């Protein structure tokens, strides 16, 4: 009887070891592409910049790094990044979520400066595959000396490129070609318009369409000169980012009819109108007859507009002490005209990118359409993504760059475009394995 019992238990043990196996297993393939030497070229998005900084974990999960790990399963080689060792970053400016008190004494959660020591831009001393350079515009990739450490303090060179430029007069594209890539990715042009947009249309100029097309053609001529195949991404509608959509333009809220009446008495003569509830802020506008006006629907306020000034210094409203309005300065505002300039630029750049993708036989990642999808809300494995600041999961605290989850979403778009164009079969990644914004 005891023997029978033992036999029964052993039988159970054997059965327990059996496992169902999926017949239709994933098969890796590089298709007609060759991933043995992959080089990524781009700007901060390519570098893995997040929360206003380039730091260790954000760089480790840059979209090219994610793609390269998947390529490795289909014949890809090592992918070297100019490693940032600290979690604080290369330069000061990293944001994290914390608590701060506003001018009214109310404490709330929001982005605050992170504490730490910037690592600096000493050259790393080796060549790299990730040539994402934060701040780079299209033409910077072709500029000799853009990575010359001597030029950084005087603003003639980029500290991020200085970390891995192979020579004082090196260009990003020159260094990329020197790696002799078999495959490349290119995502450049955001900064050609972002500098303008993020300074309220006054701090920078938009790269002209013909110039952009000319530089992009030169860049692709070089990158394909070694016979490399590649993938190119177009540009998202940057005015859709949380940086431009978090502070409401009609955030001037009145609670009593008396307030509205007073304002209408003083400002009604200029065509301004006030009601109980949300009202449009007053902004500086040199083209308006008075030099200021009320915002209109569709205009945007930047994330950087000082909240305390809105709350306690009458910005955007009426100062009863001096009986005068206090317009929000132009640098924090994108007017309808400025938004149109931004959108026209992106539309033009994207037409160029689409044409060049065809001309150079590249896979094209339609990030523009994909970010429109995110704007409407997408969900993967139970995690929701939107362009909502902080809680939308896709965008980091700087409101322009992505979270690591956001970069994983982008990596999957690249992977699917590469698979589609080159008959490759690279697996996408599980976006839920990457971090979004870390709430305290």
């Amino acid at each position, binding site marked *: 009887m005891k023997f029978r019992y033992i036999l*029964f238990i052993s*039988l*159970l043990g054997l*059965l*327990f070891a*059996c*496992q*169902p*196996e*999926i*017949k*239709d*297993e*994933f098969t*890796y393939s590089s298709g007609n592409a060759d991933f043995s030497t992959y080089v990524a070229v781009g700007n901060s998005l390519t570098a893995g910049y997040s929360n206003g900084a380039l730091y260790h974990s954000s760089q480790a999960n840059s979209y090219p790094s994610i793609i390269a790990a998947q390529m490795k*399963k289909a014949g890809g080689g090592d992918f070297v990044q100019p490693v940032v060792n600290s979690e604080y970053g290369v330069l000061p400016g990293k944001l994290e*979520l914390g*608590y701060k008190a506003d001018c009214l004494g109310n404490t709330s*959660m929001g982005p605050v400066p992170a504490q730490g020591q910037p690592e600096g831009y000493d050259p790393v001393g080796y060549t790299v595959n990730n040539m994402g350079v934060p701040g780079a515009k299209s033409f910077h990739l072709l500029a000799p000396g853009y990575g010359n450490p001597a030029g950084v303090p005087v603003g003639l060179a980029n500290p991020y490129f200085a970390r891995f430029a192979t020579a004082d007069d090196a260009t990003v594209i020159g260094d990329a070609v020197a790696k002799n890539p078999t495959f490349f990715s290119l995502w450049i042009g955001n900064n050609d318009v972002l500098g303008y947009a993020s300074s309220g249309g006054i701090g920078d100029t938009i790269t002209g369409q013909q110039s952009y097309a000319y530089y992009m053609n030169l860049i692709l001529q070089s990158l394909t000169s070694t016979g490399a195949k590649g993938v190119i991404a177009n540009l998202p509608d940057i005015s859709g980012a949380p940086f431009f959509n978090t502070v409401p333009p009609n955030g001037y809220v009145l609670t009593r009819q008396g307030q509205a009446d007073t304002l209408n008495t003083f400002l009604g003569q200029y065509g301004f109108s006030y009601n109980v509830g949300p009202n449009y802020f007053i902004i500086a506008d040199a083209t308006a007859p008075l030099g200021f006006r009320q915002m209109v629907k569709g205009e945007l306020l930047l994330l950087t507009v000082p909240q305390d000034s809105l709350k306690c210094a009458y910005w955007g409203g009426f100062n009863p002490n001096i009986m005068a309005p206090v317009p929000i300065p132009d640098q924090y505002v994108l007017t309808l005209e400025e938004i149109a300039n931004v959108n026209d630029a992106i539309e033009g750049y994207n037409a160029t990118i689409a044409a060049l993708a065809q001309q150079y036989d590249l896979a094209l990642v339609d990030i523009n359409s994909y970010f429109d999808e995110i704007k409407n809300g*997408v*969900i*993967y*494995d*139970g*995690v*929701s993504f939107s362009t909502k600041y*902080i*809680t939308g*999961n896709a965008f980091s605290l700087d409101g322009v760059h992505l979270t690591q*989850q956001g970069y994983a979403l982008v990596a999957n778009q690249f992977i*699917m475009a590469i698979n589609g164009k080159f008959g490759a079969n690279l*697996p*996408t*990644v*599980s976006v*839920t*394995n990457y*971090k*979004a*914004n*870390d*709430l*305290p």
Partner: protein
Amino acid sequence: MRKLSLLALLISFVAASSFAGGYQVRLQGQKQTGIGLIGTPLAFGASSIFYNPGSLSFMPNKADFSIGASGIFSKVVFQAKNSDYQARTDNPMGTPFYFYGAYKITDDLSVGLGVNTPYGSSSVWDDNWDGRYLIQNISLAAIYIQPTIAYKIGDKFGIGAGLDIVSGGVEINKALPDPVNGEFNLKGSTVAFGFNVGVHFRPTEKFNIGVDYRSKINMKVENGDTKFTEIPQSLQPYFPASGNFDATLPLPANLDIGLSYQVTDKLMLAFEFDYVFWGAYDSLIIDFKENNELLADSRSPREYKNSTIFRLGGQYNISDKIIARAGVYYDPTPTNEKYFSPETVSLDQIGWTVGLSFMPVKGLSIDLSYLQLSGKESVKMYEPDNFGGTYKSMAFIPGLGVSYSF
């Protein structure tokens, strides 16, 4: 005292790994299990209390007792869409069990009591698997206690009815997605009531027809416990460490119709189909007692559809002391194309069964059964969470039972 602790032990083991369509577990008699889980047209004794109370009237002996249990070793593998990511369940062994006792008060009137576990499910995925925001693990158990009465009308008809007193419990663990990034635990139990009625018709000595209906039972958990843990401090006011919920899980009704025919002295063949009213499982609603702007009630659609299980089986008397059994059945998934949740991986399944009864002395039967189930490899999605991929399942279920009659 010893009896009490045994019952406690049984209850703690009851959570059965899900292996039948949805979360139904029909391993409620080893003889029936061996024969393709056919029971409605068969009068095997006290176990008819579950399969067809009407059959109890045809119980061959004055008194009959039956006890048994099965070990469910179920495994599921999942592969994410467009990805090389795979995950496997690490389900504990499920142990559905039964006890039945029946007694003929007169030739026509029989009474009985059954204790069994016709519903249960236990899925354990890794805490960090890709589907963790849908489910990490779930355990669902229900114990039925069924006092039963049966009456024989003439020689050919038996009717029977039982009252089901059901004690059930559920526990769910899942992770909460960013930006919350915490853990959620839900636990509750309840008692509910239902019934089981059946008719057994024996037009000739060789031919049996059985029809059985088990009612739907809504397991309504009131004031169950919720726990939110590992919540960021800034969100703790919205996700309380402890709270309460209401939820209802339906245990669907079944209509079973079966035929059996004694082909020769030694060979009996049987056929059955079970219509399961899975349409009752529309959605899983968790009604949090205290809501706030970040914590709304959750409604997860399931939209199961009614399903029909087809079964074929037979038994052969090898000798006076040994009976061999075999069967096969097809159990199509009741799940909805759009709402396939990894909490209950229910694929189209084919089950093969074998069984053996050994009767060393008159009245005593030692019953062995073995069931092997394979769930068809299928691509499934849970659309509200955009989670899906390829699933495949397997289960190996040995069972052992003893029955005694006099």
